[in-house]
């Protein structure tokens, strides 16, 4: 990667500015996810509402990143690593924006769940899964800052663990629902939450792949290690049935 400065220093300022904005977005998204999971686990409605209100700021930052990138492309005509930086920043901003939406959705569902009976151990497990995903997200952004493809590759590998956590929760919810049909509504909400957190893991993986594109100029080729999650789920439901 380039450590040299551009001859036109305002170009460097523009590039640094847009990257700083995307990192600020990352910080807000990480906090929103952790807060939402905490609100769920501790039944803290006030915290949940704060998370819901905070999503507007994340969306606004995404708009800012996209328009600044469009401007940068139009005015600076970036090439090579500069071009890849701009493209990467745009995609990362889109990934983070989606993660922000998931945090908001989690907060919303947590408020609904507050009025229902608690499912033994579920919110604690979700909170642990959320912490693991936020760590992945954080590491993918750190890999971006450091242009560290090894770290990015490590994040890609870890998505597998999140998938396994999700499959475990899926089975757990299924068991609850089969044993007591009154738990179907809260378990469905919890299942959507778990699924959304699993999706955040996919976005973190997407960011990690962008880091590899940024540094190497091409996306990683080899398939990520992936046990067929669908098959695991189907066999789980068959076992229960």
């Amino acid at each position: 990667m380039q450590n040299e400065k551009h001859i036109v220093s305002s170009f460097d300022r523009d590039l640094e500015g847009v990257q700083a904005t995307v990192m600020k977005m990352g910080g807000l998204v990480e906090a929103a996810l952790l807060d939402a999971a905490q609100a769920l686990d501790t039944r803290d409605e006030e915290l949940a509402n704060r998370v819901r209100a905070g999503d507007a700021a994340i969306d606004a930052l995404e708009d800012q990143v996209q328009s600044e990138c469009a401007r940068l492309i139009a005015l600076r005509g970036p090439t090579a690593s500069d071009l890849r930086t701009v493209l990467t920043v745009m995609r990362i901003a889109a990934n983070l924006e989606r993660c922000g939406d998931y945090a908001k959705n989690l907060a919303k569902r947590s408020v609904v769940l507050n009025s229902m009976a608690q499912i033994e151990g579920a919110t604690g497990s979700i909170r642990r899964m959320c912490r693991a995903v936020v760590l992945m997200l954080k590491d993918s952004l750190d890999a971006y800052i450091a242009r560290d493809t090894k770290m990015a590759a490590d994040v890609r590998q870890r998505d597998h663990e999140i998938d396994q956590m999700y499959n475990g929760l899926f089975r757990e919810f299924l068991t609850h629902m089969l044993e007591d049909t009154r738990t179907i509504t809260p378990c469905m909400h919890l299942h959507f939450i778990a699924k959304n957190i699993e999706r955040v893991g996919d976005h973190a993986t997407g960011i990690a792949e962008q880091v590899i594109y940024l540094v190497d100029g091409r996306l990683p080729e080899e398939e990520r290690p992936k046990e067929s999650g669908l098959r695991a789920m189907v066999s789980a439901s068959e076992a229960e049935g």
Partner: protein
Amino acid sequence: MNDMRIVERDVTASSAKMAARGVQVYYGENHALKDVDIDILDKTVTAFIGPSGCGKSTFLRCLNRMNDTVASARVLGSITLENEDIYDKRVDPVTLRAKVGMVFQKPNPFPKSIYDNVAYGPKIHGLTRNKAELDEVVEKSLRKAAIWNEVKDRLDAPGTGLSGGQQQRLCIARAIATSPEVLLMDEPCSALDPIATAQVEELIDELRSQFSVVIVTHSMQQAARVSQRTAFFHLGNLVEYGETGQIFTNPSDPRTESYITGRIG
């Protein structure tokens, strides 16, 4: 999926029109070009980029032996056109330059009529047998250079009376009137406004169905727009040569990267 890709950059002819091997150029003691190996592909636009003094114009001028006119210049190595050494003693540089035409930075029409500017080359090379044939060549060349409609009613007017962009297209018409196989362009748009530049760029793209075009340009955006192959020169070395899209998205040499992203002059 492949049929959905951008096809403009496809180079259909992959055979080399011109080949340079181990080319060295000295201006007196100054080693201006160091060991250049390159294949100029047929029916392809090749752009030479690089900072001032990097040797790109020097190399361009080797391709039609324009450096012969510089007393202190020495050219070593081999350059072939269709597998024939252009520096062979038996090759007449004037005939060579009819095959490898050139367009310069500043439009330089002869102080003659528009018609005579274009007719000059075919006349001295004896490419036409009579006036009717010559008329045809002049019209065809002016049409190919996308200037026919603007000058057809005033072919007897002096070429120097045209606008800058028209003069440059007239010079291109003059260069292609001898049916060259390769057209060399040394910064052909640097004296032109954006509209005339776009017209010349459109013209270059059309010309590539018939000739190899080699263009030296200081505008990286222009190289990216018009060429299928880009060669980057730096301090007399050919640093990197490859497909234009590749060079501008993911160059392999850090010097190329630094230059095209505006980090070294």
